[in-house]
């Protein structure tokens, strides 16, 4: 390998991995500042890998179909929460309760995902901003259902989850028996660290599914649609239908992901649990080295590890550095939004450059 190609491949590595490398450096500074023990940090990161990976994985398929980061995954999260609320109302417990919650959430998530897919088909080229606002819109509908319709039209018999006025769901629901029921289904403790074995198995199965899905006919179609909708259409692929399926799968996975997330946390904040779901999932994926157009399974896990390490250490690091834990908390929110802004800017920039290049290649006297 000559030095020139080495430098080229080095710069290519840098361009492709600038964000994760920056984060590794950032965390390398922040960990000693925070003063946490290695044991504590590893435990936290393992917990959070179990809690969040499923949600982040749900973003992969729409990216494959060229629809960008699916901020509309909150639709699925809300479907999952409605499942959890109903299951709590019916008094179901443990892993069985979680499964029923998923079963209840699935048709809702399919319906919402289908609607989102149809909307996004009308907004080609600006899927991301549309899916973001669509998430806000459906959040309004969700609040209408949970705050006014539940207890009035949908019967809720469990008075522990109903507001004192007689209808509407309380702000916080304690998921007593469902709490960490999946995480602790197969108990394993190493060096005092609880390993959520069953959750990891579920996540591994999902990875297998996504890997297998990429090899099916539908997976190939999606990639083709992601490459170029026009060419795919001419090749006989039903573009709009394929895009809707991608969003439905993502929404259903986000529904399951949110249920796994909630069983780990142990409390459902009825009106806030889903607020930051999409932001944090997207930020984690991007920190893992993904872009708007390309994301892989390793990106997910690298991202979750880096993002959540930063999340754990930044308040205490902020306290050490600036004398205030709030600074650290604001910092991690800033990083989440900042990294999303940076990634979409870089991606859009690249796209503009490519467009300019293809235009200049049409001109006669080019010297490339």
């Amino acid at each position, binding site marked *: 390998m000559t030095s020139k190609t080495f430098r080229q491949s080095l710069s290519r590595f840098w361009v492709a991995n600038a964000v994760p490398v920056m984060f590794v450096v950032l965390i390398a500074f922040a960990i000693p500042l925070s003063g946490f023990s290695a044991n504590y940090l590893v435990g936290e990161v393992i917990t959070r890998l179990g809690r969040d990976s499923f949600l982040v994985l749900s973003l992969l398929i729409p990216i494959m179909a060229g629809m960008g980061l699916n901020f509309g995954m909150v639709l699925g999260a809300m479907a999952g929460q409605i499942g959890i609320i109903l299951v709590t109302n019916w008094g179901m417990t443990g892993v069985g309760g979680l499964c029923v919650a998923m079963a209840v959430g699935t048709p809702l998530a399919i319906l919402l995902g289908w609607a989102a897919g149809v909307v996004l088909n009308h907004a080609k080229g600006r899927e991301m901003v549309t899916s973001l606002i669509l998430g806000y819109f459906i959040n309004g509908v969700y609040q209408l259902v949970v705050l006014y319709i539940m207890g009035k039209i949908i019967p809720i018999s469990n008075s522990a989850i109903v507001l004192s006025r007689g209808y509407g769901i309380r702000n916080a629901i304690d998921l007593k028996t469902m709490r960490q029921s999946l995480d602790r289904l197969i108990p394993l403790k190493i060096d005092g660290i609880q390993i959520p074995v069953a959750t990891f198995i579920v996540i591994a199965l999902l990875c297998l599914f996504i890997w297998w899905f990429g090899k099916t006919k539908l997976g190939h179609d999606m990639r083709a649609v992601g490459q170029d909708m026009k060419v795919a259409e001419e090749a006989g692929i039903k573009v709009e239908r394929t895009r809707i399926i991608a969003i439905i799968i993502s929404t259903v996975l986000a529904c399951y992901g949110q249920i796994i997330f909630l069983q780990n946390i142990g409390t459902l904040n009825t009106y806030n649990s889903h607020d930051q779901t999409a932001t944090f999932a997207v930020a984690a994926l991007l920190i893992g080295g993904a872009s708007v157009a390309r994301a892989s399974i390793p990106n997910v896990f690298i991202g979750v590890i880096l993002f959540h390490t930063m999340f754990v250490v930044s308040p205490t690091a902020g306290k050490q550095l*600036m004398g205030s834990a709030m600074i650290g908390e604001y910092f991690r929110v800033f990083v989440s939004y900042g990294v*999303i802004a940076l990634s*979409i800017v870089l991606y859009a*920039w690249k796209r503009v450059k490519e467009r300019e290049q293809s235009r200049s290649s049409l001109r006669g006297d080019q010297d490339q």
Partner: protein
Amino acid sequence: MTSIRTLIDKAGWPRIIIGLLLLSLFLAAPAVGVRIDQSLTDTIVRFGMNGVLVLGMIPMVQTGCGLNFGLPLGIIAGLLGATLSIEFGLTGAAGFFGAVGLALPFAVLLGWGYGLLLNRVKGDEMMIATYVGFSSVSFMCMMWMLLPYHSPTMVWGYGGTGLRTTISLEGFWLHILDDFLAIRIGQNFKFPTGMILFFALMAFIMWAFFHTKTGTAMTAVGSNPDYARASGVNVDRMRTISVVMSTVYGAIGILVYQQSFGFVQLYNGPFFMALPAVAAILIGGASVNKANITNAVIGTVLFQGILTMTPSVINSAIQSDLSEVVRIIVSDGMIVYALTRSTRKSR
């Protein structure tokens, strides 16, 4: 029959539905014991509070930069102006106009940088604007804690550092525009003349600007960039000017809002302030790439009217507070609707 159809086509279904909804709310108001004069006052005041922010949408839409979801950037410039004005102890009219003056350089500078950024990402402006807004708000959250402010009205009492989340304008420039030449009729009706005049002035400046040579060139850039370039217009420069204008209007708009509201809201306050402004201009009949002052005026009246009337009327009618939910559904529903209208021109 055909004339009704053309009228509907011209006004657009969303505007008609929302207009009818507002009308029925006003008609229903006396039946449930809500005072019409009080409601009218509230609607007019809220129109004045939000009007300038909505005007700020126009320049960017007109040059094809899309809806300005990055409005929080302008709001931040306004907040810097407001806090500096309080820090310097300016009160009364000097306080308000001092705040405007102090906000302007920040707005121009931030708007200019924001404009340069948007020129490099043509086609994806709206998504990037959203996240530029979010990340600058969260960046400023840190800054509000770190910047060396001293005024005891603004700084946290116990720590001695960091600004409060809400700062009262009592004793500074509370209602400075609202009360200027205000007309009171009876107990419950007050017309905030000063604020409406200020809105009219800002609208007139916008209108006049779009009739200058630069303003016309800006409209040309929005409706057909290639044609504009061919006729010697510097497209990027026009876009930058429009972004600066939008940001300046955002900065001034938030100051008008605050003097009526009575508080400066820092930290997470500006996070979602772009959405109501975006929704208002869309309800007024604007699209992703066409907007004018009439759209802003009609849209703000309709949207703020709905927001004023739903809590009072619906709460009295069914005894539950639906206002927040109605606000979210109407504003975000309207934005989603507008984003799905086809605007193939830009390719």
